[in-house]
């Protein structure tokens, strides 16, 4: 308890430092800045400063197997090394291949599941819960489960054996040690886990469809196919773009299934860019090389993601305009 509170009146001269701080913070011109300063402070600490440090390190010549004090500026040498490194481009290409294949399937399957569940009347909640379970699993657990499923004597090969044997293939497919099969195994594991997310996004999109438009189309004689292609699908475009953007952002960072299933192998056949960066920095101690590679990847992915977001905004605007026009016509 301070002197100021004891005498109950104490003017500024007699207030303790805590009370003076409280009074100062309570002023209107100061108080309104508090949330801004807190948020920006955190942003500065956890995003801006590390990001600036990454850029700074990317211009240094530094492996962590030498003390940081021995690092020196080397201009764009790291960037040059990254851009001429075959491993960087191969892992980047592989990342786009994995992400492209996985996200495409996730969108299609998620959309079909959402459409089916949206039309189901009985047991809808059970279906929704079931389809969301994979997404709720910790990726490490999912990865471990798949590592068991993919054993060459494991359940997947046993399940497939009637088909593979009939087709004349070796029923013991090397899911985790054959370069091509391992890539498919990674893609499938990602599809299994993250179709839940696209399902959820599309389901919310279906749920938000304005019934009056669909009823109006029906009254005007449109059949189910016409309603789907001419009314529902255009209105679902924002949900589709959201699903593409969110899943692509995540899939391009694919790391967990790689570590859990193949560790990038055999060789580097399943190494994604995230795993490549981790390896360069944390296994090979090439901090400045890794920083330069990270900055380049950030630039590349930002272009893609901002294009996606721009598409998203444009789609939203178009839908809003359509709805406004529909409203004004009425």
């Amino acid at each position, binding site marked *: 308890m301070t002197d100021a509170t004891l005498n109950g009146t104490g003017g500024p001269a007699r207030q303790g430092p805590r009370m003076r701080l409280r009074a100062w913070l309570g002023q209107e011109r100061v108080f309104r800045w508090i949330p801004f300063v807190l948020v920006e402070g955190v942003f500065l600490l956890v995003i801006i400063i590390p990001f600036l440090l990454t850029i700074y390190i990317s211009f240094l010549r530094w*492996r*962590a*197997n*030498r*003390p*940081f004090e021995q690092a020196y500026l080397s201009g764009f040498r790291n960037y040059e090394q990254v851009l001429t490194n075959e491993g960087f481009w191969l892992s980047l290409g592989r990342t786009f291949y994995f992400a492209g294949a996985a996200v495409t399937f996730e969108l299609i399957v998620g959309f079909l599941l959402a459409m089916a569940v949206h039309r189901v009347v009985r047991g809808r909640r059970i279906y929704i819960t079931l389809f969301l379970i994979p997404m709720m699993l910790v990726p490490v657990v999912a990865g471990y489960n798949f590592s068991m499923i993919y*054993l*060459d004597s494991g359940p997947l090969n046993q399940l497939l054996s009637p088909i593979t044997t009939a087709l004349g293939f*070796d029923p*013991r497919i*090397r*899911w*985790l*040690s*054959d*370069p091509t099969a*391992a890539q498919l195994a990674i893609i499938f594991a990602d599809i299994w886990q993250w179709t839940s997310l696209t399902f959820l996004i599309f389901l919310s999109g279906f749920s938000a469809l304005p019934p009056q438009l669909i009823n109006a189309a029906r009254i005007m004689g449109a059949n189910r196919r016409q309603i789907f292609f001419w009314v529902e699908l255009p209105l679902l475009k924002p949900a589709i773009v959201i699903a593409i953007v969110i899943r692509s952002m995540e899939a391009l960072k694919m790391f967990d299934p790689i570590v859990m299933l*193949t*560790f*990038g*192998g*055999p*060789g*580097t*056949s399943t190494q994604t860019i995230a795993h490549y960066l981790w*390896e360069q920095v*944390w*296994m*090979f*101690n*090439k901090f400045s090389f890794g920083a330069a590679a990270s900055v380049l990847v950030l630039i590349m992915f930002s272009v893609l993601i901002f294009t996606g977001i721009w598409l998203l905004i444009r789609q939203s605007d178009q839908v809003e305009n359509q709805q406004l026009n529909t409203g004004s016509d009425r």
Partner: protein
Amino acid sequence: MAHAFRNTSALALIAALGIIGSAPVLAQEDPVAQRAIDGARAYMKKNNLEEVKLDVLLNSLYRNSFPDFAAEWKELTGVELVSEPLGYTDIPSKVMGESVAKTGAFDIFNDFPYTQPDAASAGVLKPLDEYAAKYKPDFSGIPDAFVAQQYYNGKQYSFVLDGDHIMLVLRKDIVENPAARAEFQAATGKELGCPATMADWEEQAKFFHTKAGETRWGITFEQPLYGAMGYRSVNFTHRHFPAYFGGLLFDADMNPKINTPQGIAAIKALSSIVQYMPEDIQGWGTPQIYPFWGSGQAYSVMSFPSIFGFGNANPDSKVKGNQLPCVIPATNAGGEPVRRAAEAAGTSYMVNAYSDHPELSYLFIQWLTSPSVGNRAIAHPKGFWDPFRTQNLGDAGIENKFSREFLEATLENAEFTTSLLYIEGHYEYMKILDNHLADVMNGNTTAEEAAEDIEDGWNDVTEDIGRDNQVRVWRQGVEAGLYVDKF
């Protein structure tokens, strides 16, 4: 069954307690351990310390055995050891992270010796020479390669307590089967037994590779019998390569010797035998290889020595008593046969340069790795320390755990132990090797092309780290006996 299990567990517990319980007596008989204990007590007294906690970044393989020794050390000195178990793949990055952060969060690092060159150069490891001069550890009976692994760039940074040099184990019941022996001799003209060379091993693997449903030597194989097993997965293949190469990987000026007839032949030999291994071998690590060997579905396995203990001790093992330990087969290096058992992993103890109590940390390490306590560690029922020094041979606990036959083979094998690459950038050099070996095994490239690419990759790493430095420490290591071979 449950009753038998309880009895076995109780016996194991009694044995473990007996080993631990006899500790103070044994320590007194071992001047190295006793000096460490006395040193720790004196350190505590001199610094007026009553309670000290030392944090150990522990290889998680030792989470069930290390605490017994930590408890004993606390009883002897009052120093508490708090272990933080972590998977061995994650430890190097934690150590290197500490070199940047300099927190002193860990006092002792426990990892493969191969982390040491990078960590020592980064300044995160405390040189131990000053303490070693004061407390006088004993490295007698330890093969040169293991002794040399404790040093880097002329300074001591660690203590080793593990012989992870790869060896070959065969199925004794098949080797001793008269019909199999006769048939093998008729087919090859050779006596069946531990193969003399890698080529002989592949010949045996080919001969014994048996499809499911076949009947041979009066045995019907319901499951296939694979001719061979070995580590061929990512981050593991390279650990077997020196056994096939049989020499120094670089010349005195750090020019790679991989792109030579010797290197190409080694790549081919390592890849060729894969055809007799389980189809999925490139995806297998220890968790798959050990149980598969225990299931009796392979004729031979090249692995860490502990696979022999696993085969004998695992309750579900079908190879118990049916294992024949062999010294590593020779490879034809430049026209003459040489045996090289690569130290594929290993267990080292290092002191953090930023520890508040580096001397105290050192003293614990000296005590743990001393001849008497080290023997008890290797004999620990739940430990993964493998025999590696001559003193292990006469120890009853170790003989009881591993068998005399195995001990003799593994200690003979230890004499051929060669280190992997013990210079800065170890993991990068070895990953380049690993990736290209995988490509050859998968038929994506030829041994000749791979050798050329590996040579280029290794040269890039050497230039990137600094050729002068690499040449200097490489020469030092060769001279110190890290690799058996000399220039």
